[in-house]
């Protein structure tokens, strides 16, 4: 079937191109640009930021927004705009690390659990059950209580919290893939379990995992901000969006910008990530359903060819 199909590849390719274009619908394009813009602003914070994030100018305590200080100053006379740029570095890098940790631990566990089954599967799943019986942030609270309160431990704690959810997702995807013909083919070819799991099963699960990952980054930003807001994550004077919200609540009436500006940035980033993840989900869903339809295209193509052939004949 495939060899017959390659003859008509132009039609298939044009269909595929259409799908590629569909990832960047207007909404997704805007969301993606906003994300890239904020990411770039944070990466180049040392160039863009007008002030040092920890430089105190006591003559400017709680200054209102002005040309000198775009968003005003906090109670220590530090420039809020500069602190948001630097705070973004803390918040975004931490969130990415949380998700990276959960991927490195959760995905292999899920693959092994799903593929091997038996005792290993039972042990891994019971451990996940116990961890998931905590409301997620509560588990992070108590891990931070044991580990100590700082940015690194908050990242580690949330990383652990995110593992069981990803493990479960990967396991359920693996269970579906495991029974497909290509896995039997790999087994009969004598491939090792490791090779089958990582080279053959994982690539077939990765698109669904990817959608979950983009959402997890959004959740990680929110959860890290919650920890910092309660004083369990990033500690002052380091700039961080959640910690800034905490600093701002004491002076909410005098300079609301201190709380509202980092809050607004969090909302923008999380909304953008949600829209992007949604778009990605729809796009990947489409390409998956497009594949079994090859027969349909083939039929259509044959009909078209027959028609053209008929026209030439006549």
């Amino acid at each position: 079937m495939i060899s017959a199909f390659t003859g008509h590849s132009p039609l298939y390719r044009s269909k595929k191109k259409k799908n590629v274009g569909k990832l960047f619908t207007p909404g997704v394009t805007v969301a993606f640009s906003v994300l890239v813009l904020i990411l770039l602003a944070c990466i180049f914070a040392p160039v863009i930021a007008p002030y040092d994030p920890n430089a105190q100018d006591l003559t400017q305590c709680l200054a209102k927004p002005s040309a000198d200080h775009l968003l005003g100053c906090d109670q220590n006379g530090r420039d809020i705009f500069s602190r948001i740029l630097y705070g973004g570095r803390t918040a975004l890098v931490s969130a990415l690390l949380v998700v990276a940790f959960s991927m490195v631990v959760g995905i292999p566990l899920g693959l092994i659990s799903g593929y091997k089954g038996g005792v290993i599967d039972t042990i891994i799943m019971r451990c996940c059950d116990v961890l998931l019986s905590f409301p997620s942030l509560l588990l992070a609270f108590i891990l931070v209580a044991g580990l100590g309160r700082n940015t690194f431990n908050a990242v580690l704690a949330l990383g652990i919290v995110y593992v069981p959810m990803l493990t479960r997702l990967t396991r359920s995807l693996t269970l579906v893939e495991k029974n497909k013909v290509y896995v039997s083919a790999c087994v009969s070819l004598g491939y090792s379990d490791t090779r089958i799991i990582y080279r053959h099963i994982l690539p077939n699960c990765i698109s669904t995992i990817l959608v979950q990952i983009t959402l997890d980054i959004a959740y990680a930003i929110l959860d890290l901000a919650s920890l910092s807001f309660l004083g369990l994550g990033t500690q002052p004077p380091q700039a961080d969006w959640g910690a800034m919200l905490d600093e701002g609540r004491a002076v909410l009436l005098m300079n609301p910008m201190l709380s509202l500006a980092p809050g607004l940035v969090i909302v923008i980033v999380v909304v953008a990530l949600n829209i992007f993840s949604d778009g990605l989900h729809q796009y990947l869903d489409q390409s998956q359903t497009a594949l079994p339809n090859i027969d349909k295209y083939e039929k259509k193509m044959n009909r078209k060819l027959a028609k053209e052939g008929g026209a030439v004949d006549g």
Partner: protein
Amino acid sequence: MGKFILKRLGQMVLVLIAVSVLIFAMVRITPSDPVASMTNGKNVSEETKQELRAHYNLDKSYPEQYAIWITGVFQGEFGESFTYKQDVDFLIGERIGTTLTLVLMSGLLAILIAIPVGVISAVKMNTWLDKLLSTLTLIFVASPVFLTALVLMLVFALELKWFPAIYQGNSIKEMILPAIALAMNMVALTSRITRTTMIEQLNSDYIRTATAKGLPRSRVIVTYALKNALIPIITVTSVQIGTMLVGAVLVESVFAMGGLGDLLISGIKSADYPVVQGVTLLMVTIFLVINLLVDILYAVLDPRIRMK
């Protein structure tokens, strides 16, 4: 049915035992000296330190400490707080009312807002109203609960002065802003799921039949479609209860409400093991009991689940 409930109850007890071991171990991951927080960092003689350790059983081995704690829990005693010098069950008893009222009020509020919003979005699918509501829910999903709380506090308490900014437990009016702040997140998630399931239901055959029979539109939507959409809605709501318990910690912190959340956070900051263990175990238990009740509710609503 009885067998089903018993089985679930047994599972829950096993999970709770594992959870209690985990809580006990996690609080002690890094060896720190709680005596320092008991004495507020004051210099005390080695003798006093030994006495304090003996008083709180800290001189015993970890398994012994766990055994003492867990037998106490079964008798309703959670141990004595290091910093408050009072029994943890007394401290919890003083504060649990505030937290439960907050969670129940906002849960109720959330359901009362979310279901109508979801149903309207589904019925008016792809109109400007649906798009407006979808945008609003997206924003509230993305807004951290403490940000919502701070904005409500700024606008309605500090600027307009309609409500008090601090909760003191004098009147129900003080609870309104915290309850709304905590509810908004759940409203967003629940109304989204309501919309999706309602659209699915409204496109099914039995709805067409009901409409063809000439039933009024309102009756088709409420007694036919909504009734069948309830199970997914309940699932999402019950999962949300856990998030709300933790969200309550954040809201309590903003409005200085002095509930369980404040107790937990101050306990974490001062390495007050009995307080942290007690409050966490209680919150997990509440979460699991609610999930169990929802499972039973499912089985009542949908006989197919009982058969599994």
